[in-house]
């Protein structure tokens, strides 16, 4: 009963947030000074098409731009959105935005979540090590490594990986989510190819997030270590292993909340990482759509990134409430 109420509240909150973002981008884009038709026209001219022909082509491509009062357009957009129709792309002349997004979204979501997963798991483990053995060389080097990695900007890591692993040593490919010769499906060849192509970006996500988790977990563990029940456990004579499990479990919970906050950051990082690796996900799409003034695609990409963050937030909240039931009553 309570749980359903909690769930409903979260979902409603998420929907409200999506609505805010939709409204915001809708009006923002109507504010934009540029004219996509003109942009297309000039880029045709730039590529050598004579003026008259370019004009005619553009007229054919964009014969019908949205018109009517802003508020009518707005409700029309909302109505279309309910049918998951995000309009038509400008750069791809009439191809539906939803179609374009669907070809990009899975890659980003897959990589961001895996990257976050690895950085979180590894970071938390290293954080426990750094805290429990904080006076030994192992703990200190773990802290040092984390501090170092935490200070390296994400794009720097990505650049280093790109240089070292795609050109200098040529261990990994870049520029595609999988080998196009393989038919997509749940075949080992396809999964292998996807993994092979995604290793570098995922590594970049994971390593750039790792340091932060280690440091956070370390301080959380240290504060829990000071708590009285740990002392009591020690006095009861519990073994070290059990004590560490005790501590880790309780130190882990506060980190879980920051997990939801870090999602936005990770999706933001997608723009950098995907652009550097030419990995065709949402971030790459967003960046390119800005370059091409393809506002419907830009709007859609932004919306779907935000929606992904919101949905992941809700999932994380639900997961958290399963781990720590107190949260449901609060």
């Amino acid at each position: 009963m309570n749980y359903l109420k909690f769930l409903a509240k979260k979902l409603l909150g998420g929907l409200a947030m999506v609505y805010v973002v939709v409204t915001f981008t809708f009006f923002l884009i109507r504010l934009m000074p540029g004219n996509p038709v003109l942009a297309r026209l000039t880029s045709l001219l730039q590529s050598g098409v004579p003026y008259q022909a370019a004009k005619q082509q553009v007229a054919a491509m964009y014969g019908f731009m949205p018109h009517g009062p802003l508020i009518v357009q707005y409700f029309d957009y909302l109505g279309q959105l309910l049918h998951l129709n995000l309009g038509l792309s400008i750069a791809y002349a009439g191809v539906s935005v939803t179609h374009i997004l669907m070809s990009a979204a899975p890659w980003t979501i897959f990589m961001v979540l895996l990257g976050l997963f690895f950085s979180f798991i590894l970071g938390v483990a290293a954080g426990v090590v750094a805290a429990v053995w904080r006076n030994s060389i192992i703990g200190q080097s773990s802290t040092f490594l984390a501090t170092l990695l935490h200070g390296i900007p994400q794009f720097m890591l990505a650049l280093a990986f790109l240089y070292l692993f795609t050109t200098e040593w040529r261990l990994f490919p870049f520029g595609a989510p999988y080998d196009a010769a393989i038919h997509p499906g749940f075949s080992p060849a396809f999964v292998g190819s996807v993994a092979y192509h995604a290793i570098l970006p995922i590594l970049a996500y994971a390593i750039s997030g790792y340091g932060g988790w280690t440091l956070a977990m370390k301080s959380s563990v240290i504060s829990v270590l000071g708590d009285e029940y740990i002392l009591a456990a020690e006095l009861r004579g519990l073994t070290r292993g059990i004590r560490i499990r005790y501590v880790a479990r309780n130190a882990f919970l506060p980190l879980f909340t920051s997990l939801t906050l870090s999602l936005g950051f990770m999706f933001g990082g997608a723009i950098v990482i995907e652009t550097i690796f030419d990995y065709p996900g949402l971030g790459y799409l967003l960046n390119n759509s800005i370059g091409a003034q393809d506002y419907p695609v830009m709007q859609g990409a932004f919306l779907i990134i935000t929606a992904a963050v919101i949905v992941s937030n809700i999932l994380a909240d639900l997961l958290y409430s399963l781990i720590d039931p107190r949260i449901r009553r609060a």
Partner: protein
Amino acid sequence: MASMNVQAKALPPLRRPNGWRTAGRVLVRKPGRIAGLVIILTFVLMAAFGPLLYPATLPSDAAQIYAPPSLAHPLGTDFQGTDVLAEIITGARFVLLSAFLAAFFTVVFGTVIGLAAGYARGLVDSVLMRITDVFLTVPQFPLLIVLSTVWKFSSPLALGFVLGITSWGGLARAVRSQTLSLRERGFIEAARGLGLSNRHIVTKEIFPNVAPFVVMNLLFATTGSIYSEITLFFLGIVPFSNNNWGVMLNMAFFQSGAMYTTSGLLYLMSPLACIMLVTFGVVLVLDAVDEIFNPRLKGV
């Protein structure tokens, strides 16, 4: 030591503690902090005076493209034969100024909204927190990219403002929760009982208690903003006309392929190294902040 004052009668000469002296003492207590301070000061000086040392546009020399390090060019030259060191020095102002402004705006928005929400509670609180939730949830970097389409934030002030307004959410939430707990503390009730104004209570009683946290966030936000702005320039999302470290990175990576040659590598690495150094300096100084603001160490 003030407590050793033996003049008991009449109006004693009262000694006030000096905050700056304490801060200075705290900062030089550990060698790491001195190093951090030196790094930060170096870059601040670079930002303040660097552009004065060089002509407004640095000379280029087609005969010196990607020259190796030498006395004339300690960090070598770039794709058009311009001295990399000079670019680093003149480029510091934009980066640091806008990062500082961004941090400043972040902290101002975050603190004011957090304090207001936590102190006022009720409707004000819920409205402010819903707004905060939106800013917390919407990922900052994509938002910046979308905003860049309507807003050419290419001056340090505009860039600082837009970075600030997109990143105050976390701070506001933290300040609010601290304010909520401070609000229940005895001294706030006492102040209310004495009939002191709300403004007084918020600024004089609550704010000093969240100040160390706020200052720490100011430092964090500075490094965070450096990353964000450099990334914006690196990806070429903000139109740019002046030289700064982010522009250098964009030119090095996207335009001139500096990454692929040993001779060009310094051009790519120098701005990266500067970013790392600034971050490093901030991290080193950070642990002094708590001590400076901790009243237990004041007036000693």
